[in-house]
């Protein structure tokens, strides 16, 4: 058929773009996860940080997109610092702290949304390419940071063995504070992308689990920035695939199940994330001091 090649090519291209778009928030949030976890702090709060960034970007971005972005990053940094404070100063269990921040963010953004953004007015926001390029470059920057800078070395040391680091004269807490605060910035960036560039508005729970998928990407990538990026692209692909299938109205029924039903398609990225973690070849080794509460 004369149009099939062009049509197929167009479909592939659309899929590629959609993959990049879906993967961008995952990559950005995953970089936050890398920074935090390589320093030894489990970061379940990514989901809440994304939501916070998404909300702030829209709420403060009505006048100027730049202001909105800045405000989102600052809020991300603030919440990141709270996570650092709770885990390092009050020795809270990392998962509990992350859950508390995610809950706070989910409840807080929903509360403020109901109060302030009910009108549903969209904002112009920022162009997508800005975030996509950032997402493609950031992993390399983070890799460079970790391998070649003094801060990066200390961050890794503190995440592997804070006691040895202390013996070498490096205090773990300040390093972790910086690392976790930066991770908040990265995650907020992901949220800002979702609200300011994709949806152009905020809706409660718009993060839809992306923070957790980003964490899965970190594990899948064995805590290496480029590996996490690959993981994020992988999961982003399935997200893009399911939305493309929905758009294209493809219909597939087998064994009495309508596999292309929007509900079931929606489950695809989560399913693939789970499958990827299950089939990880050889258990991934996390940073040795990750999650230890007394280290």
């Amino acid at each position, binding site marked *: 058929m004369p149009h099939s090649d062009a049509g197929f090519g167009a479909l592939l291209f659309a899929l590629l773009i959609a993959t990049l778009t879906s993967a961008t928030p995952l990559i950005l949030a995953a970089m936050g996860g890398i920074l935090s976890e390589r320093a030894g702090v489990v970061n379940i709060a990514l989901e809440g940080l994304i939501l916070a960034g998404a909300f702030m970007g829209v709420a403060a971005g009505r006048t100027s997109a730049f202001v909105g972005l800045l405000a989102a990053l600052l809020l991300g940094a603030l919440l990141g610092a709270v996570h650092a404070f709770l885990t390092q100063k009050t020795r809270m269990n990392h998962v509990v702290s992350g859950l508390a921040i995610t809950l706070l963010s989910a409840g807080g953004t929903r509360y403020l949304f109901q109060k302030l953004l009910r009108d549903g007015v969209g904002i112009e926001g920022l162009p997508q390419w800005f975030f996509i390029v950032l997402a493609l470059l950031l992993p390399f920057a983070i890799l460079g940071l970790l391998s070649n800078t003094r801060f990066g070395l200390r961050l890794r040391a503190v995440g*592997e063995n804070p006691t040895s680091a202390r*013996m070498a004269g490096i205090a773990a807490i300040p390093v972790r504070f910086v690392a976790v605060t930066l991770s908040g910035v990265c995650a907020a960036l992901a949220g800002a992308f979702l609200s300011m560039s994709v949806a152009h508005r905020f809706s409660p729970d718009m993060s839809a689990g992306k923070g957790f998928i980003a964490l899965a990407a970190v594990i899948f990538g064995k805590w290496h920035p480029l590996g996490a990026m690959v993981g994020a692209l992988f999961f982003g692909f399935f997200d893009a695939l399911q939305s493309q299938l929905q758009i294209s109205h493809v219909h597939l029924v087998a064994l009495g199940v309508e596999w292309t039903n929007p509900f079931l398609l929606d489950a695809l990225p989560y399913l693939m994330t789970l499958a990827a973690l299950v089939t990880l070849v050889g258990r991934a080794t996390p940073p040795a001091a990750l999650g230890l509460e007394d280290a």
Partner: protein
Amino acid sequence: MSDTPAPTLPTPVSSANFLIRMEQITKRFPGIVANDKVSLSVREGGFHAVIGENGAGKSTLLNVLYGLYRADEGRITLRGEDVTQALHSPADAIRRGVGLVSQHYALIPALSVIENVMLGAEPLEMGGLLNRREAAERIAKLATRLGLQDLTLNQRAERLSVAAQQKVEILKALFRGANLLLLDEPTATLAPQEADALFALLHSLVMEGATVVFVTHKLREVMAHSDAVTVLRGGRNAGDFRTADTDPDELLRCMIGERATQVQNSAASVTSSPTTQTLLRIHDLTVRNARHAVAVQNAGLELRAGEILGIAGVDGSGQRELSEAIVGLRRAESGELRLTAQSGDTLLNPLSVRQRQQLGIAYIPEDRHKAAMVMDFSIAENYLLGHENAPEWGGGAVLHASRLFSRAMQMIQEYDVRVGSRDANSLARNLSGGNQQKVVIARAIDSKPCLLVACQPTRGLDRGATVFVYDTLRQARARGLGILLFSLDLDEILELSDRIAVMFNGRIVGLLDRAEATPERIGALMTGAAQQESAGSAAFLPSQNGDGSGGAGE
């Protein structure tokens, strides 16, 4: 209080002679005074030993000097400068030329050698980037001095042998310009030859102007290497000596007070008469470790009932994997484990930990805190561990708490476990190490096993607890148990064993009767410097070099 008045160092003409003076240092922790008005003075260029039993406060003193702890009272003077208030953290000590070589938490395994050495003193180029080239140059110079010429800088630190890791630790200190080296039990995991090499190195550094303070409980080392000794007992000073003016007996008396030195040479006192009945037969066993590298290679051994078979080796020689394979915590890749007991002849390989327990294999894990006890369980609950399904406790359905409690109280009496109010409900974490170990051993022995696998059973214990453990093991042996004693402590192996097997690089490279075992011979086997032809009932492969390249047999 010591009986004999402790001779003190001659009063210095000027304090400029002293590199360090620690005066009346007191350091308290909740429930314990680790250092009670302790004083330590070290001459510049000196080779000073600090000795005492486990728990005497030696490490604490060193840690105070290194800035890891703040002294509650007292004064520290370094090169004439009062630094008591200035030592907030190791960074402050490092800046003043103090280096600490501590055995644990030494290097960070996942980081490369060069990164480990650089950490905290990183040379930088523009923009805050690490200057690896400069670091590598500086390290190369230092490495030659330390006999580490072939050091590959970019390999992960975990690939180094323990002895090499320790040298890198010293390199790390020198990299920061330390000229006062503090070493905490430096030879605890080294074979005798490696320990000698370490001391030779330290002496050469002293000749170049460094000062060394080392903590140990081995009097041999003190007499052979130090020029001055400070003895601590119970957190207090018990004596200061010039090594030349004293002898091991006097030092020992100082270390342990009036208590009789009954541990010396008591090996001969309890008769051991092992039967010829084979209890456990290990044949051609190969075991992989967590990273799938071969940790135990074609090992063969026989343990007889009524004997203590000590298994010596340096850290990483495969002891841990072998003990885990015997107990059931790790699957053997190939080979056979056979138990011959009342139940008959059983192949252990397919059996689980619990099944092997039920056959009469008891286990004392080496990591008391993580593997032997649940710290947040009570003593009674810990005593139950492993037997929660036993009929006497309810057979799995309902646990008879009161019955358990009274049985645990009985155990506490029998084994003299010191706990606050003699209460079996006390949490395990509130016991001292020695008392925790008593509970672990009680649990193992009370289960009436036929085979006991004991790993590092006296690690971190003071002399009193150590004596208790040794006595308990000997009594168990007298009752006919077969005991496999895995230990990194050569003295302990020599103290208790009837026969000694030596592991090196995953293989069993030697099997000796106690009578023919000397530290030198064992040390040579431990470090692979010598191989031994097959002896007795053990089976060996033809000798090969450790890296498997295959060499001519000896």
